[in-house]
């Protein structure tokens, strides 16, 4: 483990940014923390987490897949994939680091999504342990320890110092570049912080939420639960939950005619939208209730069934904070799960 003083973090950022594009959480003028490309003057945010999840780095909200040139009856396909630049994402919380594993199982399973894979290969994740989890946090429900974040390098921040531990080859290579700016240290301060966080976690309002009653093989049991009617009744179908969610990965593929050719692009889509499944011969999920149920059944039953029991939620709490009608996965879990207190 190595450390540096909190005051010298600007030099650390500068050193990292020499070799790769660096993104850190910084406060926007409206106060919201967003991942921002670091350059001299960009200040590391004190916020617990960013408004948008870091999934954009690997699975951007919109990306061009290819281009077409058409002339008369002829079509030319242009592979526009270019070399991905090396980049570093700093300050990723434990919940969001876990979300990458969930996305990996979708995009890196055969056939591998080459767009996502290239970004994964070129990105270095520097995580950041939480010190002030919020009332909307429930990462513990999914076995995530916010004081022990994964990633290529794990970082802990105290009042005066910043501690680094590399976990992967990529992380070790980057730490080597920071050798002159950091010094070898004991884990004492970090251990003390971990203990403190562990005590805080037990006091969080959602500390008792469990995944009991959910998981693979529960489709029959949960699908026709009458509570879906009530739970979905006020859902606006706005899709905000899916857009802020670090694990939602449904996408659309669309064509855009530029006048000189056609760009085929991919963009985030949402199972909450009526268009999502609409076909010429009808829609297999006609009501908002069906679409609402699909989102939660996927995260809590279907995904774990296909992925060794791993749930497709990391308890980041973004959907709790952002849903305009205050409906969310926690309410669903409490209502139809095994711990409906």
């Amino acid at each position: 483990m190595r450390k540096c003083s909190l005051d010298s973090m600007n030099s650390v950022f500068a050193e990292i940014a020499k070799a790769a594009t660096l993104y850190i959480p910084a406060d926007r003028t409206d106060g919201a923390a967003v991942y921002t490309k670091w350059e001299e003057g960009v200040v590391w945010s004190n916020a617990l987490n960013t408004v948008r999840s870091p999934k954009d780095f690997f699975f951007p909200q919109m990306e061009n897949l290819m281009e077409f040139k058409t002339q008369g009856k002829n079509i030319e396909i242009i592979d526009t994939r270019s070399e991905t630049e090396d980049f570093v994402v700093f300050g990723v919380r434990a919940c969001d680091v876990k979300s990458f594993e969930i996305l990996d199982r979708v995009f890196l399973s055969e056939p591998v999504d080459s767009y996502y894979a290239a970004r994964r290969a070129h990105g270095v994740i520097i995580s950041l342990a939480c010190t002030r989890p919020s009332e909307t946090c429930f990462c513990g429900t999914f076995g995530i320890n916010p004081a022990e974040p994964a990633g290529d390098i794990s970082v802990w921040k105290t009042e005066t110092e910043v501690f680094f531990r590399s976990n992967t080859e990529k992380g070790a290579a980057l730490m080597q570049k920071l050798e002159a700016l950091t010094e070898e240290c004991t884990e004492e301060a970090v251990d003390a912080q971990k203990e403190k966080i562990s005590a805080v976690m037990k006091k969080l309002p959602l500390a008792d939420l469990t995944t009991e009653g959910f998981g693979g093989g529960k489709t029959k049991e949960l699908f026709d639960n009458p509570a879906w009617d009530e739970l979905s009744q006020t859902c606006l179908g706005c899709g905000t939950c899916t857009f802020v969610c670090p694990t939602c990965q449904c996408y659309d593929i669309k064509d855009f005619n530029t006048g000189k050719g056609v760009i085929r692009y991919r963009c985030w889509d949402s199972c909450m939208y009526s268009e999502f499944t609409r076909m010429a011969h009808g829609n297999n999920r006609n009501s908002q209730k069906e679409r609402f149920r699909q989102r939660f059944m996927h995260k809590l039953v279907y995904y774990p069934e296909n992925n060794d029991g791993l749930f497709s939620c990391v308890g980041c709490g973004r959907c709790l904070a952002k849903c305009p009608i205050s409906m969310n996965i926690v309410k669903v879990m409490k209502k139809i799960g095994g711990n409906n207190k």
Partner: protein
Amino acid sequence: MNNRTETLIPKVGVITDVRIDTPDIKTFRVVTTDGKKAFDHRPGQCAMLSIPGVGEAMFSITSSPTNEEFMEFSIKKCGCVTEWLHQAEVGQQITIRGPYGNPFPVDDVFAGKNLLFIAGGVGLAPLRSVINYCRHYRDRYGDIDIVYGSRSKDDLLDYKEIIDEWATDAGVNVHLTIDNPQEGWDGHVGFVPNYVKELGFDTNKTAILCGPPIMIKFTLEGLCGLGFDKTQIYTTLELRMKCGVGKCGRCNVGAKYVCKDGPVFRCDELDELPSEY
């Protein structure tokens, strides 16, 4: 960089023949720009066809894999992509990628079995690939019965092939029906599910169903009424798709993705899924 394989990037295909089957169904013959088949497939698999600027959609490959020269797609005019295709002429280039999905188990489960194909309307398109595959390897299968129905005589897909080739094959029995009486039609009149019940098939067969959801529902009930077990009945599903490889999330039903885990399902497997297909 660009030698990385990417399933979403298609190949250019050329329409080399357009056959008008019915007032709203045309069959398109497609090869690559160098005149070859775009890729090998198995009976029941699908391909993504697109017209840049219009869109991309999944279609079942109606030609048999034993056809080594080209692929065929029977397409009903019902949306943006299909309407565009219907006005396309020979020589028009499109894009094609695939094959996607699981095929019908023609080489193991179906081998040695009597086969009962039941189709309604454009639902014959995916089954034609299987029927012609089984006809090609005729000695590997028992008797073949084909029940096919449509709205009218004019709406019967592949009518010429059915009459000239299928109906004249030894051990192949074709049973056609149309929904309402029509001048010049002396065959059976009535809906497919009822016709299946009237024909009263022996249960020593494996049934393969495809058609509108309502037809599948009632035919399935009819077959079960005749004593068929759901493990003897196969069908192929259709849901909206974008990626074709189980990632975009669109065709997800229960823990299955129709593009990747289907489109072919045994009917008892469907009972395990929520009824959202």
